[in-house]
């Protein structure tokens, strides 16, 4: 009975439509839990309300801060052009995020039990695509309004154009990322499309910083071309959507499930308040892309010397960490121009981020007791050796960005630099999260204070350093 038929005349005969299969699956699953549509809509309403409320509060507070004397006055064109650079960099990063996620994805269970069947792929993916397209348009419309409001725009018509331009570019990016997802492996245009805005952002930042330090600064354009941006975005979004709908049948299992792993890790990391879960996946993918390296013998010497060489070698094999380290120097110079009153605080934060990129070895040995046992020596010695590279990186970064801040008291700069190294050390040596700690019942619900304490190991010290800098700098 269960043996296959001798011939399969039409292998897809009798196969249900995507809608039928979706309904079948939904009904089967809904038998075992009572999560209704109204629950989902209720959750969505609460989320939108919170994002809207706190988002608008954040925009108002940031706008007031930008105008306050504490932040200091920047040249009129500097902030405008740096905002453009930040938007370009954000667009590049968003594109990379969309490509990492898919953006279309199916869960491994759905892949195993539903989409492995000969159901029409376009019909299966179309509702997700429409939802994502709408979500992207709404999200980027809100972003457009936020950016315009931060820039001091309060005219409703201008805010409307900003929202429309944002929605258009968001929809275009989403649609084109689906086209990229369906394209064959080895196509270069998706990589180029992500790199162009990043390179443009870097060039623009460099120009703004150089002209700001050497000349009078770039002039601010008389008007912000939101209408032109909208006019450009509409045909691009339309064309992208048509191409994406055509491409849906070509989105294959490999890309659908790869993004799901990433989304799953991101969701787990968010729920468990443990970003290392996502970082581990990103790291393993990065090393997998490299695949094979040229192995060398370590230079002779004591054990700590070999470990130090290994840490340096690890960095050489991960050049993007050094690239980000270097890029943050440019970001610090840009921040000092745009927010002169906060340059010192920015230096502390960016130094932490830059040095944190160099802690791969420290994190590896701190995560694994087995690795520490295999390497031998005390835990303190191993951690001490692996903090050398981040400490040197932090010191060098600090020296290179000294011209961006007022010197302040003589002891302040070394204290802050050492504090940054300590914060990086604390973050890098964070043990695996223990979920058995205390929670506190508050009017806003249960707050897992012990989880927050563990997660803030490193960033908490950074916050103290920022306060010290603001009061003494």
């Amino acid at each position, binding site marked *: *009975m*269960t*043996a*296959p*038929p*001798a011939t*399969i005349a039409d*292998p*897809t*005969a*009798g*196969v*249900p439509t995507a809608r039928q*299969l979706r309904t*079948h*699956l939904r009904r*089967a*699953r809904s038998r*075992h*839990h009572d999560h209704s549509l109204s629950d989902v809509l209720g959750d969505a309403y609460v989320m939108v309300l919170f994002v809207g409320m706190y988002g608008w509060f954040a925009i108002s507070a940031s706008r007031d801060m930008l105008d306050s004397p504490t932040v200091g006055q920047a040249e009129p064109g500097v902030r405008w052009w740096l905002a453009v650079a930040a938007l370009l960099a954000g667009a590049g990063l968003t594109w990379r995020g969309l490509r990492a996620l898919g953006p279309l994805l199916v*869960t*491994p*269970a*759905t*892949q*195993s*039990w*539903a989409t*492995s*069947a*000969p*159901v*029409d*792929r376009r019909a299966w993916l179309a509702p997700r695509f429409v939802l994502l397209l709408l979500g992207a348009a709404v999200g980027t419309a809100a972003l457009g309004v936020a950016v315009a409001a931060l820039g001091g725009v309060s005219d409703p018509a201008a805010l409307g154009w900003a929202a429309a331009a944002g929605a258009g570019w968001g929809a275009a990016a989403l649609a084109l990322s689906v086209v990229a997802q369906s394209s064959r*492996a*080895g196509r270069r245009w998706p990589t180029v499309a992500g790199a162009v805005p990043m390179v443009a952002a870097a060039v623009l930042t460099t120009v703004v910083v150089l002209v700001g330090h050497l000349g009078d600064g770039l002039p601010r354009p008389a008007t912000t071309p939101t209408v032109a941006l909208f006019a450009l975005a509409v045909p691009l979004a339309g064309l992208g959507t048509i191409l994406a709908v055509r491409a849906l*049948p*070509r*989105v*294959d*299992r*490999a890309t659908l*499930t790869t993004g799901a792993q990433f989304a799953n890790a991101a969701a787990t990391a968010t729920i468990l308040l443990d970003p290392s879960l996502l970082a581990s996946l990103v790291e393993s993918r990065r090393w*997998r*892309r*490299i*695949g*094979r390296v040229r192995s060398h013998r370590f230079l002779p010497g004591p054990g700590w010397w070999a470990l130090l060489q290994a840490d340096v070698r690890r960095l050489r094999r991960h050049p993007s960490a050094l690239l980000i380290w270097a890029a943050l120097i440019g970001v610090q110079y840009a921040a000092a121009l745009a927010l002169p009153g906060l340059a010192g605080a920015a230096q502390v934060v960016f130094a932490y981020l830059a040095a944190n990129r160099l802690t791969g070895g420290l994190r590896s040995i701190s995560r694994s007791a087995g690795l520490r046992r295999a390497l031998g020596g005390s835990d303190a010695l191993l951690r001490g050796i692996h903090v050398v590279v981040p400490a040197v990186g932090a010191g060098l970064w600090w020296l290179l960005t000294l011209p961006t801040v007022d010197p302040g008291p003589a002891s302040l700069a070394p204290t802050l630099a050492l504090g940054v190294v300590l914060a990086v050390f604390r973050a890098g040596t964070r043990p695996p999260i223990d979920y058995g700690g205390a929670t506190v019942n508050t009017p806003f619900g249960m707050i897992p204070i012990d989880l927050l304490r563990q997660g803030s190991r490193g960033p908490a010290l950074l916050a103290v350093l920022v306060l010290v800098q603001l009061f003494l700098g």
Partner: protein
Amino acid sequence: MIVDALSVRGLSRNFGNLVVLDDVSFTLAPGRIAVVLGPNGSGKTTLLRCVVGADRPDAGEVLVQGRRADETDPQVRALVAAALDDIDFFPDLSVVEHLELVAYAHGGNAEPVEEVLAELGLEPARDQLPVTLSSGQRRRLALASCFVRPRRVLILDEPEQRLDVRGRQWLADRLRRERDAGTAVLLASHDPELIDAVVDERIEIGR
């Protein structure tokens, strides 16, 4: 002329500059069972993943019944059944519901489900949720998903893993019946008894 059930031509897969599969080629006729052999890390699982479309090869092509095996092609998905290590389960569907879903998605009905459940010894667990299953039962459920649907090509990655002695005997018997029914079977296995009992062709890679 008999069309090969499965043809792999010049398949290559690299991870960065690490060559995992290098120009792998073979054919498999209907009603034949082939095993992929090779040491650990030789790319057996990667080869099976490329054949079913779970991974994208850097070069080469796979043909199923003479047709380019593009995973996005519904006809190909209808012909190829696979149980790889990446299978996952809906946490809120029982064993029997998983199998009925697969049968329905392939245009069939629940008729073969009970028989497959009995054959695989999953009857006592038919109403259990996946989280309550042992690793052996999960493996059986993964294998069962291949047998409740039509198929002309069957791809199995170390199907003997986590099966007890009786389970391995059943597996050998089941594969013989697949062969008799004209299904082409490609599997990776480290079990010499299973290989000696059922395999017609050996494909060595990574040597």
